[in-house]
């Protein structure tokens, strides 16, 4: 049987001189009908460019195919080389025979057109449907991706739908004309983990329904375990290894594949938690940070004079304590209030109620110390691009009345070395560093003031997986060395498993489960925790079927004066308690 798609010695370059500037070098693979190929790699590996070359969208991004062939077997069984096709032919193939979905559902749909119009367009272009017929077809397409109330949603514009919904719409568009090949370029990366599980489930189901082939591009090798038949691993523009799913996962040959599988955090249901620095049971030491009844509310204003008519209960009664040398991970999905909690601890948002106490530790004379410091999610946004590294590191010292003297400079150099950055970094600017390096800079900056607590707000989420692993290692080392307490905010269970001693699961502004990391991860008690953990993709759970669940996160807007009922807790074991739902 001739494969549906046969890519042979594909080379793609960019710029004025594409031959000299190749980002994909000699990639070959075959894809049979109904097969799913996962292309796995980190940023810059050329995986997306490879995908975009297949339907030649790479042309519009300034790329050019400099060699090789991409042969598509068309519906009439003729073989068609996409690398040499002219644009008019390509427009007939795109959408009709090759569908594609992208990473960012929020930006991939035209913001000014209704989703109905955007779905109908596919039918109009390839099926010649117009008017009511097209609308009916669009409604069917939405039904197919399990969007409830499809007829009404057709009139929505993208801004009225959540990310998960939008990705379903994207899938509906891509599959509208039943293409035999679907290219999914990191379709779940921008989504919450439970939503990701939904989308994965949907893709798997649709694939079964239609028998289409799929190319699934991802940086997360754990994610493809549930859906792929074959895996192609890319690094630096080359395909370093490819083969059957089980073969790659169980018996990787290439060192990079091994690295991806072993060095990178994968969720292991509590089996990979830290063994060191467990909380002692006697509780004699004073906590590094204690948060009591933290409440953060944002007024909702309306009316001509902007009177508050309600409040968003972003954080609604959160208590926890954090011992020196301990990591408390706060996990939850977007909108759960985990970042607001962190920001409230730092005083970046004004807390409505609640108390904090943080232990100030003794420091060298002349150097002030703020007990709590923070490392932010986006290493590209948290360093002022116009300041040199020296100025950036000096800022906390200056802010606390210190001076940039020899001592400070010495400290900078030491810290830079300690976080693994070259010594000449001081005179350089942030843009000269990679994402991982920048995050190391942020960590160094946070340590300039000898804090006792470091708040890490999704501190590794924006990094490539292998970089993530190394930064996590660094964090663990630093924690041991300086006795730091970490408040680790994350949505990523795999990462949390590697660093947390304790975990607090936050949902709708409230902690629903808190306790020892191993205990919480291996024996989740609260339904939400269970759901969250069930949604985490793991290498262990191959070809597992996910349940589709279209429930939405409840609204956090409450009427004025609303107070939640006080929490009741069930204790499970020495350090594991779960909120009792009313």
């Amino acid at each position: 049987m001739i494969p549906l798609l046969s890519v042979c010695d594909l080379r793609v370059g960019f710029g004025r001189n594409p031959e000299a500037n190749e980002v994909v070098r000699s990639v070959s693979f075959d894809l049979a009908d109904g097969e799913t190929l996962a292309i796995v790699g980190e940023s810059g590996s050329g995986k997306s460019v490879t995908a975009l070359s297949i339907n030649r969208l790479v042309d519009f991004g300034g790329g050019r195919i400099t060699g090789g062939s991409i042969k598509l077997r068309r519906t009439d069984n003729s073989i068609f080389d996409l690398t040499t096709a002219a644009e008019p032919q390509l427009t007939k193939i795109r959408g009709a025979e090759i569908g594609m979905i992208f990473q960012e559902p929020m930006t991939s749909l035209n913001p000014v057109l209704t989703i109905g119009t955007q779905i109908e367009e596919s039918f109009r272009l390839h099926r010649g449907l117009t008017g009511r017929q097209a609308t009916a077809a669009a409604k069917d397409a939405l039904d197919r991706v399990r969007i409830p109330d499809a007829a009404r949603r057709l009139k929505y514009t993208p801004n009225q739908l959540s990310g998960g919904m939008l990705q379903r719409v994207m899938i509906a568009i891509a599959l509208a004309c039943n293409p035999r090949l679907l290219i999914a370029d990191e379709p779940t990366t921008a989504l919450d983990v439970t939503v990701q599980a939904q989308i994965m489930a949907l893709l798997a189901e649709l694939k079964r329904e239609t028998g289409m082939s799929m190319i699934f591009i991802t940086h997360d090798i754990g994610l493809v375990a549930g859906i792929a038949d074959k895996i192609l691993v890319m690094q630096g523009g080359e395909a370093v290894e490819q083969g059957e799913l089980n073969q790659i996962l169980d018996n990787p040959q290439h060192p990079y594949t091994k690295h991806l599988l072993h060095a990178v955090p994968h969720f292991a249901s509590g089996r990979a938690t830290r063994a060191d620095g467990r909380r002692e049971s006697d509780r004699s030491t004073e906590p590094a940070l204690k948060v009591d009844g933290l409440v953060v509310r944002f007024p909702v204003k309306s009316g001509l004079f902007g009177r508050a008519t309600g409040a968003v209960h972003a954080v609604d009664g959160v208590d926890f304590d954090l011992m020196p040398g301990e990591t408390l991970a706060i996990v939850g999905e977007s909108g759960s209030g985990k970042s607001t909690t962190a920001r409230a601890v730092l005083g970046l948002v004004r807390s409505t109620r609640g108390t904090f106490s943080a232990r100030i530790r003794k420091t060298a004379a002349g150097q002030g110390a703020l007990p709590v410091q923070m490392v932010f999610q986006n290493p590209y946004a948290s360093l002022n691009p116009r300041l040199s590294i020296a100025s950036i590191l000096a800022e906390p010292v200056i802010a606390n009345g210190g001076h940039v003297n020899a001592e400070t400079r010495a400290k900078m150099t030491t810290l830079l070395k300690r976080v693994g950055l070259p010594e000449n970094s001081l005179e350089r600017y942030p843009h000269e560093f990679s994402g991982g390096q920048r995050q190391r800079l942020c960590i160094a900056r946070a340590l300039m003031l000898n804090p006792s607590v470091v708040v890490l707000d999704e501190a590794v989420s924006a990094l490539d997986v292998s970089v993530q692993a190394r930064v996590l290692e660094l964090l663990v080392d630093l924690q041991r060395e300086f006795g730091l307490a970490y408040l680790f905010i994350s949505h990523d269970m795999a990462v949390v498993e590697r660093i947390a001693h304790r975990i607090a699961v936050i949902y709708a502004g409230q902690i629903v489960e808190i306790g020892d990391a191993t205990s919480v991860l291996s024996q989740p008690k609260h339904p939400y925790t269970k759901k969250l953990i069930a949604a985490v993709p793991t290498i262990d759970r191959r070809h597992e079927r996910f349940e589709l669940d279209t429930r939405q996160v409840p609204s956090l807007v409450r009427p004025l004066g609303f107070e939640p009922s006080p929490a009741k807790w069930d204790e499970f074991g020495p350090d594991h308690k779960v909120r009792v739902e009313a």
Partner: protein
Amino acid sequence: MNYLMRRLATFPLVLIGVSIVVFVAIRMVPGDSITAMLGTEAGLLTPQQRDALAAYFGIDQPWFIQYWHWLLGLLQGNFGISSTYGKPVLGVILERFPLTLELALLSMIIALVVGMPAGVFAATHNEKLSDLGVRMIAMIGQSTPNFVLALLIIYTLSAGFGVLPAMGEFSPLWQDPLRNLGQLLLPAVTLGFAFAASVTRISRSAMLDVLSDDYVRTARSKGASARSVIWRHALPNALIPVVTLSGIEFGYLLGGAVIVEQIYALPGLGRMVLDAILQRDYALVQGSVLFIALNFMVVNLLVDLTYVALDPRIRLREH
């Protein structure tokens, strides 16, 4: 709705600010209605004569009392009486306004009809020779002072072809459409030239931005043709900056195009205000500046409302 109400609520505030500024400023300018009428002959007046004239022009009291009276009148819809026209200010303004409005509209139509396709064309031929050509013309358009263009047009037409648009009296559109268009076309072209150039430049850069957006890639992945991608998917998204620019420019044009009106001898708002200032027709200056400011604010509000119509993502909020 709430947003609209709140925006409208700031109007009186800004208008009071504008009126106080203009009220004080025009009175700070040396010379008054009397010297404006009599010139150096004003020196022949006896003090009693001066007082009588000051009372006649209503400038015999401190400015804040004058302002108070004027404000009270305004609340009753009375903008005062123009000293040069001897007629109610509002009537004078409304008589001049159709021309200014029509001229502004015509210029904007010319600018959009010429500028948008040119900008889209340049964006889709990015960095090719034709793009450079369009950009060069647009640059020249933006760089030509409009009085130079106006004088050149008039000179070329009258000396070279012996024709010229009718000058002086303005024929309203509803009375004599042909004559009206004949009168306004050249001034509109004069104003529209630089306007079109700005529109070209901004629609080009907006298109370039939009063409690299994700949803354009999505449209292409659906198999949409190049034309459909440009006109159906990209252009509506590129309109916001064009609307912003056109709105601002239109808002300014509604304030009258002093120099072009002067050269083409069009009795528009701009010249009226200029003359009113030169003749120290205080009531007319105050009334018309207020009117122009109100227009400007209304146009700005309309621009904001247009955003909402164009882009469902935009919610009306303060700022």
